[in-house]
C-alpha cells in the first residue's frame, strides 16, 4: 500500500499509534448545562472511521428542541456564572483547559485521526498542539481586554455564541472559536462537524473535568438541520462559523435583521505563485502541505515543477492514518471523497492533463489518490471553483502582473504562498495579492497570535490575534 518502493531489506515496519487507551463510548448524548443528556428524540448519526468506513460510535442528532435546551443552558451559564466572574478567574479556567488538553494531547490526536482521517503525524504534531496554543493564547487576553482594544467600555462580552465548525480538523476548528469566545466572557454552544464530532465531544468531557461552571460550554451534535436550528435561535447573540462559502451565505441570509453577530471563516483554495527563481524543491513541499492547491507557475519552470511534483507523488506514503509514517490518509467523509472524484472527472473532461502516482489506494474507506493536473486553462472548473483534495491544478503565467491578475480574479481568497528567492519580488507580490494570509517560501504555517481568515467569498472576521478578539466583544 505504501507509495515508496523500498528495497526488500528496508521496508518500514508498521508503526501504529496505540488506540487501546482511547475510551470510545458506543453512544454519545448531548453535553448541555454541564451534563450528558440524551436527545429529546431517539435519532442518531454514526461517527465513521473514514479510513475503513466502519462505525466508531453513534452520535445524537440534536433537534430544534435540543438546541433550544442548549441555548437556555448557555444563557443561564452566562447570566449566573460566567459574566459575573472576574476576568482573572475566567482566565484560570481557560488556562486549565489548555493545560489538560496539552496533557492529554495523544488521546485527542488519536481521536482526531480515527474520526477525521488526518495522519497521526499531522494531528499529533500540528492540530492538537495548535488547538492547545489557542487556549493558552486567549487565556492570556482574558484579563487584558480593556487594554487590548480601546478601553474598558469596549470590552463587554456578547452573551451566547453558537460555534459551528466543519471539516476534518474539528478540534482545531472548535478551539479557534471556543478559546476567544470564553476568554472574552461569552458562553458557547458548539456544533461540531457532522462527520467528525468525537474530538469535540471529548473536549466537552474535558471541560466538565476542568470544573467549568455548567452551561459555559455545551455541545450539540447533528447535521445541517441542527446547525440551522442554532443559527435561527433568537437567543443566540453570535454565530461563529467555519465551513463552505455556500453555507456561509445561508447563515448570513438567516441572520439578516436578527441582530446576530457573525464571524465567517469560509472555504477557498490555497494558491501558490511560483516564480522562475523559486526554490523548486521547497515549493513542491509547500504545495503538498496543503490538501488542494491552485498553482500558478511561471512558464520557464512549469515543466520542471510538474516533473518534481509527479516524482514526489510517487514517494508519498499512503496508508493507515494511525501509522506514524503515513503522509496521506483518506478524505474525511464519503461526500468529500465524491467531491474530489467529481472534480477529477471534470478536469479530464475539460481537457487538462492528469497525472496520478502508480500506487493504488485501499478500496474500503474514503480514499482518493493525489491528482496533478497540468495544462489547466483559466476557464476550466479546476481554475475557478473551490478545490478539495488531494488535488493540484497547475496554471501558467508569464509576468508577475499576470500572476496577480489570475490570483486576484478568483471569487475566494484564503491563503497564498509566494515562491521566489527575490525578496523584492516577494514583497511586490504580497502587497498586491488579495488574500487573508500570504506566505513566502513556506505554507500552512499558523499561530494563534496571527489573525487567520480570508477575503471576498472566503468570509470575514478573523480567528486569532487581536483582530480575532473583536468578533467576540461588544465594541
Amino acid at each position, binding site marked *: 500500500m505504501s507509495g*515508496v*518502493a*523500498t*528495497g526488500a*531489506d*528496508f*521496508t*518500514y*515496519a*508498521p*508503526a501504529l499509534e496505540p488506540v487501546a487507551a482511547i475510551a470510545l463510548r458506543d453512544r454519545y448524548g448531548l453535553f448541555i448545562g454541564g451534563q450528558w443528556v440524551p436527545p429529546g428524540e431517539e435519532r442518531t448519526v454514526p461517527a465513521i472511521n473514514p479510513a475503513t468506513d466502519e462505525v466508531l460510535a453513534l452520535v445524537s442528532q440534536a433537534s430544534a428542541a435540543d438546541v433550544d435546551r442548549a441555548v437556555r443552558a448557555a444563557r443561564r451559564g452566562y447570566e449566573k456564572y460566567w459574566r459575573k466572574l472576574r476576568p482573572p478567574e475566567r482566565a484560570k479556567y481557560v488556562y486549565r483547559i489548555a493545560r489538560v488538553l496539552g496533557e492529554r494531547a495523544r488521546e485527542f490526536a488519536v481521536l482526531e485521526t480515527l474520526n477525521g482521517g488526518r495522519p497521526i*503525524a499531522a494531528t499529533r504534531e500540528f492540530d492538537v498542539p495548535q488547538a492547545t496554543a489557542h487556549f493558552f493564547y486567549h487565556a492570556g487576553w482574558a484579563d487584558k481586554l480593556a487594554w487590548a482594544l480601546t478601553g474598558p467600555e469596549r470590552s463587554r462580552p456578547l452573551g451566547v455564541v453558537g460555534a459551528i465548525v466543519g471539516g476534518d480538523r474539528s478540534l482545531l476548528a472548535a478551539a479557534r472559536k471556543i478559546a476567544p469566545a470564553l476568554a472574552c466572557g461569552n458562553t458557547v454552544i458548539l456544533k461540531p462537524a457532522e462527520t467528525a464530532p468525537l474530538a469535540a465531544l471529548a473536549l466537552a468531557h474535558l471541560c466538565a473535568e476542568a470544573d467549568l461552571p455548567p452551561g459555559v460550554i455545551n455541545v450539540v451534535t447533528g447535521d445541517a438541520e441542527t446547525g440551522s436550528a442554532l443559527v435561527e435561535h433568537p437567543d443566540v447573540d453570535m454565530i461563529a462559523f467555519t465551513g463552505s462559502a455556500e453555507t456561509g451565505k445561508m447563515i448570513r441570509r438567516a441572520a439578516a435583521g436578527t441582530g446576530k453577530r457573525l464571524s465567517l471563516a469560509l472555504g477557498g483554495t490555497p494558491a501558490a505563485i511560483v516564480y522562475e*527563481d*523559486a*526554490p*523548486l*524543491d*521547497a*515549493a513542491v*513541499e*509547500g504545495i503538498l502541505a496543503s490538501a488542494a492547491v491552485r498553482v500558478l507557475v511561471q512558464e520557464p519552470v512549469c515543466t520542471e515543477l510538474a516533473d518534481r511534483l509527479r516524482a514526489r507523488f510517487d*514517494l508519498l506514503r499512503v496508508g493507515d492514518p494511525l*501509522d*506514524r*509514517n503515513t503522509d496521506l490518509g483518506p478524505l474525511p467523509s464519503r461526500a468529500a471523497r465524491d467531491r474530489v472524484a467529481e472534480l477529477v472527472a471534470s478536469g479530464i473532461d475539460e481537457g487538462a492533463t492528469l497525472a496520478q502516482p502508480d500506487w493504488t489506494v485501499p478500496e474500503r474507506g474514503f480514499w482518493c489518490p493525489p491528482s496533478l493536473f497540468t495544462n489547466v486553462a483559466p476557464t476550466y472548473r479546476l481554475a475557478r471553483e473551490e478545490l478539495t483534495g488531494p488535488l493540484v491544478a497547475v496554471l501558467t503565467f508569464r509576468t508577475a502582473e499576470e500572476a496577480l491578475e489570475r490570483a486576484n480574479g478568483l471569487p475566494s481568497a484564503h491563503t497564498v504562498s509566494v515562491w521566489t*528567492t527575490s525578496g523584492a519580488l516577494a514583497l511586490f507580490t504580497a502587497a498586491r495579492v488579495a488574500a487573508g494570509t500570504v506566505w513566502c*517560501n*513556506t505554507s500552512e504555517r499558523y499561530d494563534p497570535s496571527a489573525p487567520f481568515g480570508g477575503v471576498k467569498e472566503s468570509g470575514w472576521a478573523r480567528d486569532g490575534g487581536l483582530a480575532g478578539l473583536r468578533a467576540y466583544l461588544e465594541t
Partner: protein
Amino acid sequence: MTRAPVRIDAVMLEARAATLVKRAIKASAKRAGIDLAIACLDLTTLEGKDTPDKVRGLCARGRSPAPGAPSVAAICVYPNLVPAAVRGVAGSSVRVASVSTAFPSGLSSLDLKLRETHEALESGAHEIDMVIDRGLFLSGRYDAVLAEIVAVKRACGAATLKVILEAGELGSYAAIRRACDLALAGGADFLKTATGKIGISTTPPIALVLCEAVRDHTRVFGRTAGLKLAGGIRTTKAALGYLALVNETLGPAWLVPGRFRIGASSLLDDLLMQRASGVSGSYSAASYIATA
C-alpha cells in the same frame, strides 16, 4: 553550465528533513537498518595520536564487528596509516579510504595535494576523501575549486573519489548546493558532508541538500553518484533517520555501500549494542561490545 544556479530556501528544506529523520523505524525495519548502517560504515580514525596498532585493531573490528554482523564498507585513515590499514583489511571486502589534500583545512598548494593523493594511492588506498579548498570557494573562485577537484579526480584514476564539502563552513544551504554541483561536475564519485573536525558537521537539512544534488545530477546528466554523511552521527537512531532520508529522496537503490556511506568512529558501538538487543531482547552493557 547554462543551467541557472539551483535555488534553495531553508524553511521547507529543514521541515522536510525533520520529517524524514523522524520516521518511525521499528522492528524488522530497525534490524535491517542496523545491518545496513554497519555495511555502509566508513569506520574512521583521524586523530593525531593514531598509530599502526590502533589502525590494525580498527581493521579487525571492521572486518567482523560482531557475530553475524556484516563487515563495514571501509576503514578511513590519514595517508601515512594507509599501509597499516591495507595490511589490516587484506583478504576481506573492506576497503581502505584515505583522507587527502591537506585534510582537514585543504589549505596547501595543488602540487602538494596531488602528491599526497598519489602517495595514498601508491600505498594501496582504494578510496580518496579529498577536501575542497573553502578559502577558494568563499572568495568566489569557483573555477579554481572545480579545477582542483578535476585534478584530484584525474590523479585518482580508477579509485573512488569522495569530495568533502565541509558544509558547516560554507555559510548557507545555497552555497552548500553550489559546492555539491561543483563537485559533481568535477567528477566526484561521492559527495561528503564534512571532515568531522568542526562544530557543525552533518545535519538532516545538509544531508538533504546533498541528496537533492545527487538526485538532480542523476536526472539531468544520467550519471549517478553516492553520498557520505560524516561527523556527529553517533547513535543508531540518528543513523536510521539518515537511512530514511536517503531512502525517501534517492530511493532504495542508494542504500548500498557503493552509493551510501556513513563516516563515524563511535557509531559502531551503539549500532552493535542496539543490534545485540534486537537479537537477545535486552540491552547489553557497553563492556560486552568489543571496541578497537
